[in-house]
């Protein structure tokens, strides 16, 4: 007997002739993501991917508790729907019974509250002498005999004893849900505008879930924002890269640009002009990195700079598509995803936008195009963008090393 992970694929299985390339990418992503868990064999049968340790004594597969960490890592790989830890063994019905008893014993140790069960069986190996209903009935009986505290409940059991008879026999119960989506790398690359807030990491996560690898850009205004704010953004980048893979975080030294802007642009247009420069800097960095789009965490109407007019005014300075996966989302829904991906607690640390000195008291919420032209007439935008691009520090974020 040995333990093996069974991961189920989702949307990929609906693909047509190009399905193969999605599967290859998925397996390669899994291999990369699971590097630290030792030498693994990752292979596929139909809509399933199996992950098996090459070395017998791999500790990550030893018990259900030990396996939690590697299972969690599997759930972070987009393209996977769920994952289970299964017992893999050979033999006839006696072996099935023996393994089922061991499996249920371990399960009840971890979950003493379990009182009811049902057996679910699939038989791929038609040479096995019993058919699926027979396996269910007979195995159910054996479990009842061996565990007098358990009862059968086919409608709403506390756990399901899954038995699969294929090339080998497999037994498992329960599954850990993953984030679905498409394998990262099956779409073009995007440049995420990352602030220290709640929204932008979620936006990055959502685009990565559609197969998009990411790089990120952060605008740093030290000493008006602190070094802790930058550390926080690095932490957020690390959290996002847990899903999207290795990324480069560009830290733009934005202080001088912001000060110049502040001196030469009307107060109520400051947020718009600032964002226009940010987008242009981000686009140039994106071109350098081979990214094909920009990603922001904007949500319509959330703040002054996210009204339709303000978005139009900032959008027009770039040629690349600006993807805004949160545009129609409620803040609460965004917070829920943020919690799910483990970013929320970091996002709400208080260092972000520490200094409100550059924020106008009453920013224009519905700027006209002529307002924008007027606001920028005293500013050498091109020089600013150039300075921003050149004054950038690149940090490679690799969460799996």
């Amino acid at each position: 007997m040995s333990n093996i992970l069974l991961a189920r694929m989702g949307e990929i299985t609906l693909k047509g002739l190009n399905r193969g390339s999605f599967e290859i990418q998925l397996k390669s992503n899994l291999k990369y993501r699971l590097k630290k868990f030792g030498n693994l064999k990752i292979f596929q049968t139909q809509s399933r991917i199996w992950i098996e340790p090459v070395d017998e004594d791999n500790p990550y597969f030893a018990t259900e508790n030990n396996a939690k960490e590697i299972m969690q890592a599997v759930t972070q790989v987009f393209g996977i729907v769920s994952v289970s830890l299964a017992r893999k063994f050979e033999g006839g019905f006696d072996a099935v019974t023996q393994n089922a008893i061991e499996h249920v014993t371990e399960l009840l140790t971890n979950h003493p509250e379990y009182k009811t069960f049902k057996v679910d069986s699939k038989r791929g190996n038609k040479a096995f002498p019993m058919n699926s209903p027979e396996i269910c009935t007979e195995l159910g009986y054996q479990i009842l005999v061996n565990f007098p505290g358990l009862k059968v409940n086919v409608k709403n059991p506390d756990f399901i004893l899954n038995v699969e008879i294929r090339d080998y026999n497999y037994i498992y119960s329960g599954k850990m849900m993953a984030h679905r989506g498409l394998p990262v790398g099956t779409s073009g690359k995007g440049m995420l505008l990352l602030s220290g807030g709640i929204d932008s990491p979620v936006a990055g996560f959502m685009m990565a879930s559609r197969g998009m690898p990411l790089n990120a850009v952060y605008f740093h205004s030290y000493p008006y924002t602190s070094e802790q704010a930058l550390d926080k953004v690095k932490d957020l980048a690390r959290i996002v890269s847990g899903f999207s893979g290795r990324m480069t975080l560009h830290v733009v030294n934005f202080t001088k640009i912001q000060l110049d802007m502040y001196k030469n642009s009307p107060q109520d247009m400051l947020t718009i002009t600032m964002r226009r420069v940010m987008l242009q800097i981000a686009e140039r960095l994106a071109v350098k990195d081979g990214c094909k789009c920009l990603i922001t965490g904007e949500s319509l109407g959330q703040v002054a700079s996210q009204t339709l007019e303000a978005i139009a005014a900032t959008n027009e300075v770039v040629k690349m598509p600006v993807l805004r996966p949160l545009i129609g989302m409620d803040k609460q829904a965004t917070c829920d995803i943020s919690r799910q991906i483990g970013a929320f607690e970091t996002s709400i640390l208080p260092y972000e936008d520490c200094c409100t000195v550059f924020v106008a008291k009453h920013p224009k919420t519905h700027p006209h195009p002529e307002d924008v032209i007027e606001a920028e007439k005293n500013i050498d935008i091109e020089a600013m963008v150039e300075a921003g691009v050149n004054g950038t520090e690149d940090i490679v974020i690799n969460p799996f090393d």
Partner: protein
Amino acid sequence: MIYFDNSATTFPSEGVRSIVREYLEDEVSGNPGSLHTLGVKADKLYRECQTNIARLLGADADEIIFTSCATESANTAIRGYVSRNKRSGNKIISTRTEHKATLECLALLEKQGFEVIYLPVDKAGKPNLGLLEEELSKGGVALLCFTLVNNETGSVLPIEEIVDLRNKISRQTAIYLDAVQALGKMKIDLHGLGVDMCSFSGHKIHSVKGTGILYLKSSVKIDPLIYGGGQQKNMRSGTQSLMLAKAFEKALSEAAASMDDSHSDIAKINAYLRSELVKRDAVILSPDDAVPYVLNVSFSGFESETMLHCLEIYKIYVSTVSACSSKAKKVSYVLLESGVDRKIAANAVRLSFSRYNTMDEAKEFIKTIDEIYDTFLVKH
């Protein structure tokens, strides 16, 4: 580097460093509680240390209890006193400008049913003594908790008047004094002062972190905070560290020896900074009669934290209790309680000095402030 954050912590002096090194490298220092020669030797040195410290503070050796920090001293004194002396009353008098170590103890005691009366303080940070007299006269006051030198403003408590009032009106009331920021900055004679309990911290006077002292007047009985092997007359169980005690002793004796000279040097630096800063529209928030070692100043046009980061660029280190977050601005409660306008308090920065600071550093500081105004000021 210019280090103007000595009220937060100081670096260990060379003398202290060499004592610590000596203890780490040289011998096996015994447990002062052991009966063999190593233990006896350690115990002897330990008592010597206690005696020397007591002498420098105007106390008796067995009134000095070593703790891990001043917060532990405060907890032991305040909680231990009221726990042991329940019959002396249910009221405690203090102010809202105390250090958190005191305020949080008082908050806990309030939950346990004690009545805590917080005296208002004036602009100079001094508690209203008229009200104190009134409250003492009503009776039932177990304890007074005050700070000799405020850590944010340097304001000095009129302790003699407070002790006089207590002696005159309510002799059963004990006085706990937080003297952390006073140590090394002014002469302290504990017997002369007439307080009952007093806390000190070593790392504020160039000792190492992990060194605190509680002065407990011999006639005062308290319950210990930490139970165990009964060390230090059962007031603070746990094996004593001879190394830390020696480090404290060294730091204190150095501070005492240099106090007069350093006080006048720092007073000059303080006066210079005050006059230069006022010319630059800064508001001095430390009262005129504050200790010269602490200078709280509000810079116009810079929120506290922004100024702190600007100075940090020039390797100048200061302190702020006002941290701004995107939602709620945290402003110093000490300044607000002293009646400082919220907007001015939000820009407050604390400079705090030690004997190692120089006039050249002060001049460099002023030069840097000018540069910061030129480079980073955002005019609204």
